[in-house]
């Protein structure tokens, strides 16, 4: 597992969630925040509705990474896989921002990682 402070995916994932007002904490306090604490995660709605909210958020994060931050998809990773992986984590209340960032690290190649 990468060092939380020295991994671009962690930084970009935190920055995007902060920009999308899903969290309101500094980077060093963000690692263990659970998905159930993000602004979108309404525990009272049906699973289908929660999933629709998660797809909407994952689509925006994907656009932020690719269009706004210049990230590319890793080899053999499709946009569908990258977004679905995010959705799976977003709807799991026990997963943390670190889990989301690790998954994004597997699927996206951020600017300084592109060689």
């Amino acid at each position, binding site marked *: 597992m990468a060092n939380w402070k020295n991994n671009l995916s962690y930084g970009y994932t935190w920055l995007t969630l902060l920009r999308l007002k899903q969290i309101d904490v500094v980077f060093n306090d963000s690692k263990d925040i659970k998905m159930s604490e993000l602004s979108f995660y309404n525990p009272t709605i049906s*699973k289908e509705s929660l999933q629709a909210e998660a797809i*909407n958020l994952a689509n925006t994060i994907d656009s932020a990474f690719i269009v706004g931050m210049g990230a590319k998809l890793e080899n053999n990773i499709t946009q569908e896989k990258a977004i679905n992986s995010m959705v799976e984590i977003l709807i799991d209340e026990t997963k943390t921002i670190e889990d989301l960032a690790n998954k994004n690290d597997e699927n996206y190649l951020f600017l300084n990682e592109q060689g």
Partner: protein
Amino acid sequence: MKYLIIAFSLLLSISVFSQTNNLKTDIDSAIFNSGLDSTLVNELLTKNTQLFERIDSLKDDPDFYDKTWNKLVKEISDSDSTIGYWLNSLNIDFKTFQSEDSTSASLGLSYNFSIERGKLYPKEFGKNGISCAFSSVGNIAFDKKVNPTDFIDTKLSFKLYQARGGVQLSLKPDTVHQRTLKLLPVLMSHSDIIELKESKEWKEFTNIFKLDNSFLYSLSLNGGFESNQDFSKYQYAFGSTFSFSVKSWEKGTWLSRLNILDYPFALTRRLTKTDDELSSTGISLPIISTGIDYVIPENDTLREEFDNNLNPYFRYRLEIGFRTLVAKAVKQIIYFNAAFKYYNEIGASSTIKEASLSNYSYFTSSLTSDKGFFISYSYGRLPFDKQDNAVYQIGFNYKFK
């Protein structure tokens, strides 16, 4: 095999705990008739009572079962990722159900199982997707008389969706990418969120990195099975659902001003100085799902009293969900969560209407804190419920990893 061990170990513990009264009496008798010295007998009886008092305190504690379940799932997921995938698709949350008059309570659980497979097609301004899913969701109280939401919904669905929106850059993409890369370490180094939001780097980032409103439309066809927890009542339902979710990320947009549900909370945020101005937010715009089902009642004794033939009927369905920030106060972030569900039989006969079997509504809301404290209130009834129920819950969710 391990999967079976998990399920059975938990059910066994519940079963054993429910038998503790008889077990305590048996052990007391054995000690009493053991022929040991009376001082030793009294000491053993005291120890036995203390032991069973400890067991009694655990047997109605949902948190105990939650911790046990999550620990078992984590250990098995760590050792076998395939079984872990299936187990992680199943969310179980143990809880205490309480009746409206607070005279009875029962341990129970909410479960949610969902498997979905799909394809995504990126387009110029968003993505289109298709997916197929199997899901089952419900509440099970170990004493079914105390289950206020005795409704289990199991279905297969096929979904089409479109997601629109994203990022709007105020400079050339390459310039924004390089500037963001330069700003990132500076923003990451802040130790105070207020200082970060007031820094020139944050202002520059939010200025060059604007966000469009995001929309998601989805249309699904679904067929499924609805029942109460012991399957004494069940019906089939086939229909379609349209869901709409929109988020407006930037401040002061026309969509955020339209979010009238957020107005009271804009006030609480301003009064607690969480926000520096009185404004509603577009990130908490409600999600709306609506649909029509063709319902085939199969086994429903209550309905059968008023409709001997259990005739099929059409049903309208609506769900609205809303979550917003209430305040950041006393080092806690507090959210308000709510959902309203409504079912209405289209063209119901006067007999069915008079028997109050033509429409059902259910409202649930909660205040949750990031530190784990929560208060919730639910009112209404879902299909198969005879009467409206009000349920209050107050509690604390522990964070453990």
